[in-house]
């Protein structure tokens, strides 16, 4: 079991109140429906006694009923994944599922079966990162893909001629999914589970790529730099153009010099070099 689900029948005026109260008992997300709402808590965060206490307290003043059930994690993205369209980045890169037939040849072909992991090329940030990677010499370089998701950027680094590629992700499913995708592309890329602070790499990297989000990147920047060689490249994405100034507040003191950024919509990918 991975989650606890509470199904609550209540009047609309108590919906928000109960959700606010249940958020204190470990429930982190809610979905309204015609009868009331459903709420979900991760097993470790769920407080059974606190939940009972909240529901008993409000049952004394309004009509409500509820039940708590256990939910297993599953691939909820399956519906989208089985119909997704291939993505092309200019004439250079094609990203496709193993069931797609490509009509023409591309210099770089990446097969991805996503299984609830991020990185299929459908999101602007993945495409921006790949465009930035195409402009950096990967030949004989050591590359780390931080927060690898489907493993798409690690695969791209290998296709671009990197000598060694490593990857990690905090999420168990991403670790499993990236392994499947490395095999699908006939590659053997090590993938670890955890955060950068928990990693223990033998040697620093020439190129570090991280498409995560602003808050995580800011928090982990020091650890990225600790794992990079002087003169190494850092490619970041997962945030908006307006976030660059916040990112630079942590990169500049660490000796990371901004080279350029590219954008698509509000999203950007920024290239730094470690001085």
């Amino acid at each position: 079991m991975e989650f606890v689900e509470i199904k609550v029948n209540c009047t609309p005026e108590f919906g928000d109140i109960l959700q606010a109260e249940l958020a204190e008992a470990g429930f982190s997300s809610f979905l309204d429906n015609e009868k009331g709402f459903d709420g979900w808590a991760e097993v470790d965060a769920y407080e059974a006694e606190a939940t009972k206490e909240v529901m008993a307290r409000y049952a004394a003043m309004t009509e409500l009923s509820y039940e708590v059930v256990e939910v297993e994690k599953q691939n909820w993205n399956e519906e989208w994944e089985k119909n997704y369209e291939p993505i092309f980045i200019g004439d250079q890169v094609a990203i496709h599922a193993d069931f797609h037939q490509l009509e023409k040849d591309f210099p770089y072909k990446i097969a991805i079966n996503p299984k609830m992991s991020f990185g299929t090329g459908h999101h602007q940030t993945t495409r921006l990162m790949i465009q930035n990677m195409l402009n950096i010499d990967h030949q004989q370089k050591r590359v780390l893909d931080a927060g690898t998701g489907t493993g798409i950027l690690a695969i791209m680094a290998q296709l671009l001629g990197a000598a060694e590629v490593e990857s990690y992700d905090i999420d168990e499913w991403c670790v499993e999914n990236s392994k499947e995708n490395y095999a699908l592309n006939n590659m053997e890329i090590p993938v670890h589970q955890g955060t950068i602070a928990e990693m223990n790499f033998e040697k620093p990297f020439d190129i570090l790529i991280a498409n995560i989000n602003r808050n995580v990147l800011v928090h982990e920047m020091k650890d990225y730099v600790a794992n990079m060689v002087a003169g190494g490249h850092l490619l970041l994405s997962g945030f908006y153009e307006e976030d660059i100034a916040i990112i630079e507040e942590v990169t500049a003191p660490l000796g990371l010099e901004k080279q350029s950024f590219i954008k698509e919509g509000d999203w950007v990918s920024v290239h730094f070099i470690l001085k």
Partner: protein
Amino acid sequence: MAKEIAGYLKLQIKGGAANPSPPVGPALGSKGINIMEFCKQFNARTQDKAGQVLPVLVTYYADKSFEFVVKTPPAAVLLMNAAKLKKGSSEPNRVKVGSVSWDQVKEIAETKMPDLNAFTVEAAMRMVAGTARSMGLKVEGTAPWEA
């Protein structure tokens, strides 16, 4: 031509913390929406409100695309923060375990104005004060309109 709307979903998710777990996974996934893309967008847009429970209204279309609007935090959450309560009253109508001032009610009402069905701040304050009482919170002092 406008896209064909297939439906709406109202969720509450902590800012900066959407992931493929429920409710995002089952709710959006069952409609054929790419939940990974929703999570990336939601987290980037709410990263300054990390940890706060935020209502989000998702519109999904027949072509599996989606749009969403992030609303202000629920009045009940803002009231709990204002009263610095971890848990509410054990008997809401009798035992007042926490209190908020009318100034706090006004501040919350002003925050909530964009999302409330209220034309004036006073009307919004009455709604917020009603929510406070339902939670067992005492609103201290005299309402501005009674002073």
